[in-house]
Structure formats: C-alpha cells, structure tokens
C-alpha cells in the first residue's frame, strides 16, 4: 500500500511539475498576502503578538488558496473513475496527503523565511518549540485541508466553499498554534507549554484517524 501511495504521489508530483499550477498560485498568493499586510502596516512596527497572529493568518489563507487542487483536478480531468478502479480509497488518500503535506511544508517554510526577513518582531527565542509547533501545525493543516478538499471536489462548488468549510475545522488548531508561536517568541520552555503541544498532537491524531475512516464514504459514490 505504501508503494502504491508513493506512485500516486509521484503521478501528482509529475503532473504538477508539468503545469506548475499549484506552485505558481501558492507562491503568488504568499507574495500578494504579505505585501498587503506590509502596505497596511506602513511605517509602523507591529508587536510580536500581532506578528505571530498574522503569520498564521497568511498560512491559513495560502493553504485555502491552493490545497483544494489535489482532488478538484481529478474531477476536472475526469480521472476520478480510473483512480477508483485501480486503487483503494485509503491509498488514494495517502497519496494526496503526501502531496499536500509537501506543499504545506514548503509554502510555510517560505512564509517563515519571508516573515523573519521582513518583520522586525518576528524573533524566535525558543527555536525548538517553534520548530515543533511548525511541524505539528503543518501536519494538522495538511490532513484537515485534504479531507475537506475531497468533500469540495465531490460537491462541485469549488472556490468559495473551501475556506468556509475548513475554518471551523481548523479553528482549534490555529488558535493553539498561535498561542504556541507566541510562547516561542516569549521563550517559554517546553515544560510550560506541554498542554498546548498535547492539544496539537491530539488534534493531528484525531483528524488523521477520522479522515481515513470517513474518506471511503466520500470517495465511493
């Protein structure tokens, strides 16, 4: 199953490299979103708590702009039926999840670099805590947005519905990640932030389990 998921991922990866649709739109969206924030700030210096919040705002909206592609593209090209024939639902989900996971990690890595270059108060005191938050938050974001993307692709209404459906699902994750990012700015230790970390880990595990259990129902219609 792992080999099959990997070959599915490779298929997505190659077709993405051919069109570069998701990569281009994500990259442009990051630039647009951050420049809007920079223009609206002007010459003022914003506090570190606001910087941490805006960091996750950009991450959320960038994810919403590009991650629905994974399943919508299959519906648009009419290749859903072929995929249903050749692979089991959990294989398909794993393949798409790996693809989205890599997209989320690379895009958030770029956002983090741009933030640390352009925002004065983006100073991480506890770097390992920031890294753990970043990794766990990205996993949760990728899982939740992949399963919602599957629903959106089947629903046929692609654009506007995606952030509407994703936001309530992602809210606990984003709230906790903003909190943890602020902790890493303040230099809070792991010991003090372990409850928040446990929430993010719990969210990732629950979302992953629920997604694998429910994907069968979405995929087979």
């Amino acid at each position: 199953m792992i080999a099959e998921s990997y070959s599915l991922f490779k298929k997505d990866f190659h077709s993405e490299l051919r069109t570069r649709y998701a990569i281009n739109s994500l990259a442009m969206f990051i630039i647009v979103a951050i420049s809007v924030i920079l223009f609206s700030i002007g010459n003022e210096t914003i506090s570190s708590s606001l910087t941490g919040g805006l960091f996750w705002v950009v991450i959320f909206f960038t994810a919403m702009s590009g991650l629905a592609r994974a399943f919508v593209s299959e519906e648009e090209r009419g290749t859903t039926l072929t995929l249903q024939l050749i692979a089991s639902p959990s294989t398909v989900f794993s393949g798409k999840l790996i693809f989205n996971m890599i997209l989320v990690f690379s895009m958030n890595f770029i956002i983090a670099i741009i933030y640390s270059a352009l925002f004065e108060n983006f100073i991480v005191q506890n770097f390992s805590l920031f890294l753990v938050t970043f990794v766990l938050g990205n996993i949760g974001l990728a899982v939740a947005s992949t399963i919602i993307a599957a629903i959106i692709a089947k629903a046929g209404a692609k654009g506007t519905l995606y952030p509407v459906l994703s936001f309530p699902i992602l809210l606990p994750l984003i709230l906790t990640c903003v909190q943890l990012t602020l902790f890493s700015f303040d230099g809070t230790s792991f010991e003090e932030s372990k409850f928040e970390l446990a929430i993010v880990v719990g969210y990732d595990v629950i979302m992953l389990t629920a997604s694998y259990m429910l994907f069968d129902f979405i995929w087979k219609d």
Partner: protein
Amino acid sequence: MAWKIFLFILLAFVSIAGIAFPIVEKPSTWYEFPFIPGLEENAKIIFFHVPTAWLTVIAFLLSTVFSFRYLRSKNLDDDAKAYSAAQLGMVFCILATVTGAVWSKFAWGQYWSWDPRQTSIFAVLLIYGALFALRSSIESEDKRATLSAVYSMIAFVTVPFFIFIMPRIMKGLHPGSADDTNAGPIVDFKMNSNMQLIFFLSMIGFTILFFWMWRVGYRSIIIKDKINKQLTGHSAG
C-alpha cells in the same frame, strides 16, 4: 394531546416564574429567589440562556448520531432527521449567542469578549453555517446526504477541543474556567432549592419542546421529499 397541554403549562410557568419572581436577600417564601453576589438581578436569564445552550449541544449530537446512522444505512429518513436537528440547532445556537451576549453586556460590561465559551459557540455557529452552505451547493440527494454527514462527523471530532479543552487553557469569564475562583458551576452551590427547581423545570420543558419541534421538522421534510418524488414521477411517467 395531554402532554402538549402539560408542556404549555410547564413553559408558561417557567417563563412567568423566571421573569416575575423577585430576588431578595433572604428568601422566606417559595416564590423568592436568593441574591447571588456577582449575578444580582441578571441571574434570571439563566433560566433561558442555559437551556438554549444545552439544546444547541443536544441538536449537534443528534445531528451527528443520525449522520452516522445515515452513513451506515443509506436511508434518507436518517438524513432528514440529521438535517432537521441541525436546523433547530442553528436556531437555538443563535438564541444562546444572543441571550449570552445580552447577559455578558450586563454582567461583564461588553457584548462580546472572546471568552472560551463564546469562542466555542461562535465555532458551532460557523459549523452549522458551513453545513447549510455545503447542503445548498449539492443537487443530488444521496450525494448531499453523504457529504453533509461526513462533514458533520469531521466537525464533531473537533467539538471536544472547544467544549473541554479551550475553556481550561484560555482565561475565561464563565464558571468552570481555568482562572475561576468560584470553583464550580453556580447550579451546585449558590442557587437555593426553588431556583434549582425552576432551572431544571426549564431545562426539561425546553428539551421536550425541542424534541417536539424536531419531530415535526423531520416529518415535514420526509413528507415533502415524498410529494416531490411523486410529482416528478408523474411528470416523467
């Protein structure tokens, strides 16, 4: 029929008692409520705010249970039940938000302060809104039922985070928050017995009312579907 009259009398009594019974320092007769420091005259809204919030949760739970049953049985009646519960849940969710905001204005000084419970009711409101947006975007009945069932189950697994975890990590104003010094719900300690009685009568009355409305709601959806099918069947045949 008898139970409808009983329900009418119960809710009429609860409304009158909840609004009209005076709050005094030392209650001596059965129709006087005790004076609770920090709540004062605002305490009366508890008879209406708590049941609506409770029914929001019950409706959400029912909606998820019947979504789960739909996914197992593929019976559209279960979807009608889940949808009807979600509709009522939305109504009670708005009522709970509004009564809560009014209470918050008089007890804490502003309508909205992103207290954890306010955050979670806002999230529930968003989930219901998203569910209806999803439902209205899909034409095919089976597909609509399946996808909204899956979505409400995914939404349901996030609920423990809002209900049990958020209020305990964020600073809050509701009883039972992380920094609450009163240690525990008001119901246990500060209400006297007649206030508790009215409170629980109100909970029971509103719950019966909810199940009645729910039954009317899902039956009308099922009948509407049946008539629609007959009409389209005739025109096609």
